[in-house]
C-alpha cells in the first residue's frame, strides 16, 4: 500500500491559515524547533533557558504573523529572521550583562553537549564562539547553524551582504586563532 508523502511546510502553513489547524502548526514547530533552539543557544552564548524562552517567543510570533508569510521564501528562513529579531531585542535590553560575561560563565548548555562524542572540542568551540562580537556570532549562527546562504543571512539579520561576509571572515579568523591556541596549550 503506497504511503502518503509527508506534507510540506507550505501545506502545513496553508492548513493553519485556512482551517486554523493547530496540529499542522505543532508539526511545523516539531520540524524546526531543534535548529531554531540551536541557533538561539549559540547566539545567547550557551544560555539554554534564555534560548528556549526566545525560541518559544519566536514560534508564538510566527503563529501571530503567519498571514504575512510570503511563499517565495523558505519557512525556515522566515522563522530564523523572527528568531534573530527576538534575540536582538533581548540583547538590547541586557547589553551590559552580555558584554560583561567572563569565560567561566560561558559554559555550553549541558543537555545539548552531554551526548556529543567529542565533548571537549565542542566546549572549546562554544567558548570560542562566545568570545565573538554579537554581529560576528550572529553571522556564524546564520550561515552555519541556520544553514542560510550569505544573501539569506543578510536578509534575516537586516545587514548589508558585505557586512555579513566580513563578519563571517573575521569570526572564522578569530575562531581559528582561539582554537589553535587552545590546541597548542593542551
Amino acid at each position, binding site marked *: 500500500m503506497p504511503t502518503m508523502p509527508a506534507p510540506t511546510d507550505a501545506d502545513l502553513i496553508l492548513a493553519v491559515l485556512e482551517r*486554523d489547524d*493547530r496540529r499542522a*502548526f*505543532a508539526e511545523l*514547530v*516539531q520540524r524546526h*524547533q*531543534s535548529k531554531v*533552539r*540551536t541557533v538561539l*543557544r549559540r547566539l545567547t552564548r550557551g544560555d539554554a533557558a534564555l534560548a*528556549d524562552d526566545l*525560541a*518559544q517567543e519566536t*514560534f*508564538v510570533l510566527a*503563529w*501571530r504573523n503567519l*498571514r504575512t508569510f510570503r511563499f517565495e521564501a523558505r519557512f525556515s528562513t522566515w522563522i530564523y529572521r523572527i528568531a534573530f529579531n527576538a534575540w536582538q531585542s533581548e540583547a538590547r535590553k541586557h547589553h551590559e550583562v552580555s558584554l560583561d560575561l567572563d569565560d567561566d560563565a560561558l559554559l555550553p548548555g549541558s*543537555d*545539548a553537549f552531554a*551526548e*556529543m562524542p567529542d565533548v571537549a*572540542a*565542542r566546549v572549546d*568551540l*562554544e567558548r570560542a564562539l562566545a568570545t565573538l562580537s554579537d554581529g560576528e556570532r550572529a553571522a*556564524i549562527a546564520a550561515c*552555519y*547553524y541556520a*544553514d542560510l546562504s550569505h544573501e539569506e543571512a543578510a536578509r534575516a539579520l537586516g545587514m548589508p551582504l558585505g557586512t555579513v561576509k566580513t563578519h563571517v571572515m573575521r569570526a*572564522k579568523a578569530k*575562531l*581559528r586563532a582561539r*582554537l*589553535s591556541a587552545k590546541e597548542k596549550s593542551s
Partner: protein
Amino acid sequence: MNADDKLDRMLRADARQAIPEDGFTARVMSALPPRAPYRWLKPLLVLGSAALGSALAVLLAPAQINIVQGFLDLAQMRGLTLPGAAGLGMAAALLVSAIVLVADTD
C-alpha cells in the same frame, strides 16, 4: 586538511547536533492565543447593526424623506436634496462598518 576546512567541519558538526524535543512543542502550543470562538460573529454584529439601523431609519423617516427617491436624486445628480442626504448618510454608515471590519482583520 587545512585549518579552514577543519573549522568548517567543526561548525557544521556542531550545527547538526539535534536538541531533544523535551515537551518544547507542547509548551509553544499552550502559549498560543486561544482560538477565536466564532469568527463570523463579529462581522455579523457590525454589519447587522448597520443594516438594522438603516432599516429603522427608512421605516421611521418622516414622510417627506423617501430613501429610494434620495438614491434616485443622487444618481441623477440633482444636488443634495433631503432624501439624498439621508441616502448618503446610510451609505456612509455601511462604508464605515466595512472599513472597521477590514481594519480589524489580522
